[in-house]
């Protein structure tokens, strides 16, 4: 068996034509993707798109209806135990034991992994330190804040130092500060060579962390690529010009229309926005404004955000649940 890839980087995760049906409802519909070792894949999609079900199949929690996945080279159907030894999973709800202390949670999972008791203790302390939980290590988890629970959940997933880590909406429900903190921790893991697969409904999160993004909607992969590629795909950037003097706005508009016909004027912001194809339009415009003696506060290209990308791909915003999902799920 050989894996065919576009480079020599080995694959840490491969989803191969994964399908999951619940009765009539198809939750995951022929999903395939590769995650090269040491990279981050962001799986982006609204609630009910099939992200969690895909992760559950890749982490041996749920049997695929058809297709399979490989984690660290092991097949989830043929070698589930080898897969479990090679990966960590942080689920959607922080699945730590509320009645144990942070330290006891780490010990519990470490021992269930089959690690020696002494090693569990050392690793547990290291992880508590690293996730700023050392002081709280002997506190019972029900007294932890939401951010602390998530960090502990992540620490617990790392007790056996798995080369592959699955994170299902790791920052859902966290305040912005805790979210940024968690992102830093994840970046640290990637620097050390861990392969991450994270699902998210936040475009910013995928943009911040992921090397590659898979966009999922209604159980299907509808787009795939780097954040930049996806942004390029979703159509044109805009040229945004802000003039210094509001009185010159009409003159500026006239000049800009000679280059690109479609110009939107925002008088209050002294701003012109024009759909454009690229840099050449911007340099041409800048030159003409200078010759006409127009003073500009700012001129630049604005790329579409991932939000715009998602909207153009699916026709709805990422944060909205897919309208049809609630009906389909209840079947």
């Amino acid at each position, binding site marked *: *068996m*050989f*894996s*065919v*890839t*576009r*480079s*020599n980087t*080995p*694959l*840490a995760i*491969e989803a191969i034509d994964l399908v*999951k049906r*619940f009765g009539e409802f198809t939750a995951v519909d022929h999903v395939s993707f590769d995650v090269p*070792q040491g990279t981050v894949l962001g799986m982006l999609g609204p609630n009910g798109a099939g992200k969690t079900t895909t992760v*559950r199949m890749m*982490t*041996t*929690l*749920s*049997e695929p209806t058809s297709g399979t996945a*490989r984690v*660290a*080279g*092991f097949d989830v159907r043929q070698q589930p*135990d*080898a897969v*479990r*030894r*090679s*990966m*960590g*999973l942080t*689920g*959607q*709800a922080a*699945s730590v*034991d*509320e*009645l*144990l202390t942070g330290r*006891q949670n780490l010990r*519990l*999972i470490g*021992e*269930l*992994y*089959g690690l020696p008791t002494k090693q569990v203790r050392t690793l547990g302390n290291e992880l508590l330190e690293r996730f700023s939980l050392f002081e709280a290590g002997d506190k*019972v988890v029900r007294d932890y804040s939401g951010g602390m629970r998530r960090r502990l959940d992540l620490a*617990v997933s790392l007790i*056996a130092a*798995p*080369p592959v880590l699955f994170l299902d909406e790791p920052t859902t429900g966290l305040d912005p500060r805790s979210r940024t903190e968690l992102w830093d921790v994840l970046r640290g893991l990637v620097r050390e060579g861990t392969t991450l697969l994270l699902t998210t409904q936040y475009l910013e999160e995928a943009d911040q962390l992921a090397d590659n993004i898979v966009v999922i909607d209604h159980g299907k992969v509808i787009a795939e690529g780097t954040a930049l590629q996806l942004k390029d795909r979703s159509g044109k950037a805009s040229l945004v010009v802000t003039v210094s003097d509001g009185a010159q706005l009409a003159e500026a508009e006239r000049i800009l229309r000679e280059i690109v016909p479609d110009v939107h004027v925002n008088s209050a912001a002294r701003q012109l926005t024009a759909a454009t194809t690229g840099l050449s339009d911007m340099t041409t415009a800048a030159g003409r404004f200078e010759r006409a003696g127009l003073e500009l506060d700012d001129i630049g290209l604005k790329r579409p955000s991932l939000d715009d990308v998602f909207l153009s791909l699916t026709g709805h915003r990422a944060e909205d649940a897919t309208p049809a999902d609630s009906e389909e799920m209840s079947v």
Partner: protein
Amino acid sequence: MTTTITPPAHQQIEPRPAAPAGTASYLRQIRTLARRNFTHIKRQPEMLSDVTIQPIMFVLLFAFVFGGSIQTGSPAGYREWLLPGIMAQTMAFASFVVALGLNNDLQKGIIDRFRSLPMSRSSVLVARSVSSLAHSSIGVAVMAVTGLIVGWRIRNGFGNAILAFALLLLFGFAMIWVGILVGSVMRSVEAVNGVMFSTMFPITFLANTFAPTQNMPLVLRKIAEWNPISSLVQSLRDLWGNDGPIPTTASWPLQHSILVSIAWSLLLAAIFAPLAIRAYTKRTTD
């Protein structure tokens, strides 16, 4: 775009240490999980109320409030006659603890976390059973002490007394499977509470637990005397010497209570264990 063929990924990713296999690691998993369940009790001592405060309350209520008006025919008196009934009831509620604990773990994603680990599938259930039996044993010990205080005595020798305790534990083992079934099927802890209260109370009352069956209407009497709880309670009373001779009108199970009690426990386990394992497997594999 060029396509190159690379060797399988797992040759390049650092191989994972294989988990130590075999009985030793299986026992360690069970010990670790059982210790977790005991830590829960330590953190929430009120979890023990079903085997401490509740049965003591029953003893006091029945011994001192209703006891005076219940005729048992036991030479040793009602309090002594009552205690085996309360012990059996406490054991029947072992299923309750299992159902609540398991359901809570399923709801909170703890079971999913365990299932994502390279560990044995069955150790979670075995550890639940072990800690449940320990939990119930605490109850039996508390009841024995309470009983000794209010006048209960062991009168038929050490061997018979031990056999009685063994019968109690065997019944507790059978009830664990009922607990695993209910805990796996129900979708919330509240639902578990509802189902268990509305079934376990009538079942433990429609028996010879608190009052003799002789004075019940005929149909109820038959049901009560064939109730697995009744044969257990009767065998406890016989083995501890807490009852007079069984009336000749009593049904067959009460005349052969020890054998029937063993048979009932084995039969209940044989029926509920496969159902429970199926329900648990179904719940945990979508």
